């Protein structure tokens, strides 16, 4: 290489570098001067979301597609009308969604950054139950509304009285999935069950609540065994469950483990009269993964396009934007109802002040895809979506379509199809 070429190369590099830096000169953060804006031309949403790591699936197929769809719909309609500014403002989130790498320490730090440095108008909730628990005190500290999506557990309920900005939308174990499943077992004549659960918060929670609900319903638990998240062989466990003579098998684990269990059962030809699949059983990609083997599998959730008067329109909208297999028959309708509720609360408040919006959310009922929607508040603290607003708790794959099979209860009639019982045998090739 000659000296002349190297000199030219060096000069070019310096010029290019200088140009890049110069391009940045006009950069001015919207909130950079620390002064409250007199006028505003956009609403900024930020978020610490799991773009990489173990929870990345939630950003891919959980709340991720929903908040992006909602924001694009709001912007297509001209933005949100904010009376304080006398105009409709579009929502911006590009550049304010950080990767928490599925790490809670990183997530808490990024939340602080969004709230104190970027000073965004609203912050999307992080993903996973543990992240919600760790993030909730930060939302409350800086008085940001926390519209929680992917996560929820009984153990947060005691804390909610001190977390006034927490608004959980997802249903979970005791609220009100497992009470409904126990009722369903009674209806179907299931009186002996086996449980396989994951060794973490989710598994402990579901196994614990299920044990209580089954005991209350007079259902005997013949086997209750846990598996680590990295389990790679469940054949012995399944043989034990089969040998127990249980009518139903419950899998309180995550997609990785649940898919392993389903695949192993198909391979070994082990079947039960009822099989309840935890997270993963609800995803619309399931028919593509297991084909006709999914027939009769029950799952936690649950909703379908006939669940509510607005559900079909939501299904059509979602399908027009996202490819088949990205839907979620557990959380999506709840998340959509949640953001519709939030949208109306912001407009009703007429301000971007989260404290005002929080009060509107705590005291209002709005019409959403779920129908009339409100939150059950915990004293002066946070709230959880009212059980009456849930689209359903237990689903079942029937003719490759998800159906809600909840027995009627005091919270309403959610069933879209009668349950299949016993579950059909695994199809033979």
């Amino acid at each position, binding site marked *: 290489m000659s000296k002349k070429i190297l000199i030219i190369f060096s000069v070019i590099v*310096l010029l290019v*570098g200088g140009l*890049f830096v110069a391009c940045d000169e006009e950069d001015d953060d919207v909130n950079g001067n620390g002064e409250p804006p007199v006028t505003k031309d956009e609403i900024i949403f930020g978020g610490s979301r799991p773009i990489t790591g173990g929870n990345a699936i939630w950003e891919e197929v959980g709340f991720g597609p929903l908040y992006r769809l909602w924001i694009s719909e709001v912007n297509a309609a001209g933005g949100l009308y904010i009376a304080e500014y006398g105009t409709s403002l579009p929502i911006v989130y590009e550049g304010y969604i950080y990767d928490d790498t599925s790490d809670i320490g990183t997530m808490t730090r990024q939340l*602080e950054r969004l709230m104190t440095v970027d000073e965004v108008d609203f912050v999307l909730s992080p993903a996973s139950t*543990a992240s919600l628990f760790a993030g909730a005190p930060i939302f409350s500290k800086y008085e940001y509304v926390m519209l929680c999506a992917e996560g929820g557990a009984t153990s947060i309920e005691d804390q909610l009285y001190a977390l006034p900005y927490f608004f959980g939308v997802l249903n979970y174990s005791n609220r009100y999935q497992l009470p409904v499943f126990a009722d369903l077992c009674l209806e179907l004549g299931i009186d002996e069950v086996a449980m396989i659960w994951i*060794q973490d918060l989710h598994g402990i929670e579901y196994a614990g609540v299920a044990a209580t609900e089954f005991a209350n319903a007079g259902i005997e638990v013949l086997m209750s065994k846990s598996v680590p998240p990295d389990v790679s062989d469940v054949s012995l466990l399944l043989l034990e469950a089969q040998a127990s003579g249980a009518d139903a098998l419950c899998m309180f684990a995550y997609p990785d483990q649940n898919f392993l269990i389903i695949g192993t059962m198909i391979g070994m030809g082990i079947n039960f009269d009822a099989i309840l699949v935890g997270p993963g059983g609800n995803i619309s990609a399931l028919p593509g993964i297991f084909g006709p083997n999914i027939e009769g599998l029950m799952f936690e959730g649950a909703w379908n396009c006939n669940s509510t008067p607005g559900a079909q329109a939501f299904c059509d909208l979602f399908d027009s934007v996202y490819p088949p297999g990205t839907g979620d028959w557990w959380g999506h309708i709840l998340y959509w109802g949640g953001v519709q509720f939030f949208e109306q609360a912001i407009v009703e408040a007429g301000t971007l002040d989260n404290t005002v919006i929080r009060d509107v959310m705590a005291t209002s009922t709005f019409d959403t895809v779920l129908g009339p929607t409100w939150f059950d508040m915990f004293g002066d603290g946070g709230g959880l979506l009212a059980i009456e607003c849930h689209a359903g708790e237990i689903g079942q794959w029937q003719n490759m379509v998800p159906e809600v099979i909840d027995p009627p209860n005091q919270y309403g009639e959610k069933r879209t199809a009668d349950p299949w019982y016993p579950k059909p045998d695994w199809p033979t090739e």
Partner: protein
Amino acid sequence: MDITTFTSNKKFWIWGISLLAVLAALATLPQWLGSYYVILLKDILMLVLITVSWVIFSGPTGYMSLASAAFFGVGVYTSALLLPMTGAVLPLLLVIVIAGLVSFILGLLAGALTLRLKGIYFAVFTFGLVLLIQRFLLWFEMNITHTRGRFVLLVEDNTIFYVMLAIFVATLLTAYFIRRSKFGLALQSIGLNEEAAAHSGVNVTRVKVITFAISAVFMGAAGAIYATKLTYIDPYIAFNPLFSFLPVLMAIFGGLGSFYGPIIGAALFSYLQEFLKTEFPFQYMIIFGLLLMAVIVFMPRGLVGLVQRLLASLKEGPEEKSTPGWAIIFCLFGILGGLVGWFIFRERRGARVLLKAGGVVTLIGGAAYLLMFLLTLLGGLGGGYF
């Protein structure tokens, strides 16, 4: 070198006063920095002190310990037990001290059991310790206490920062004085040749076990105060294997051969991670991976080794055939960053940041490249580079 002799050394006082000035500056930061920067700084201090703690033992002896996550997690859990959200059982500082002590005892026990192992066996065993404690606690929580994670008392950010700073200072002082003491000499001799060290009168096992346990103290204390920021923990969060591997990476990044190498390496590494996670959330894994590869390939002695090489070049002229590959790498990353920014210009803020980062990196790389070139010309060592 004797401690007394050493403290009369002029270099010691220069370094000591400089360090004090830096610490004094750090101590005033919460007064004028926003809470995010205080938290970020606290996290950087934490990673630096974990790295330095790791280096106290693994640096001189060459034993690759992967037990850091175990010591750190024990601290986290101590905090969860003694500082529950429902109300502190003991004062915060006492909990920090207890966490350090518990980690020390764990270090003693683990060290006594494992330090007769060498090489890969020791590394595997220490990592096994992390998983063993994690799984034991899971079993205990599931079957004995029936708890589903634990909420930890929320502590004010500035308090967390000052406690972390205090642990950081204690770690640095301990590392420094161990390194410069007869004890440190014994450790180095163990690293060079364990049998020879034993024959020259060093109680090899005792030195190793005690140092291993001392290094655990600071990790445990850091874990205890870190838990108060997380506010919610479970065994997976507390015993995150990442904390076993990060200190190793950070020490290599900075350079294992010197006292300040791991400090600089850990500080830069953690800031770089934060910067990439927030400004390049969709590309950071690729950029970070490439940067690490570049460091390993072009800077085998870490950042400090690079600086030493540059200083040597200034003094004596560049080494034969020492093509400044790292400078070219900087240039390429800069140009790449700028181009990516240009291509996604419609993403306004992201593009600005990319342009800025690309520009800065390009400028650094370009300037360094030009400097090396000029040095070559001035030194009349044309054959060195070209």
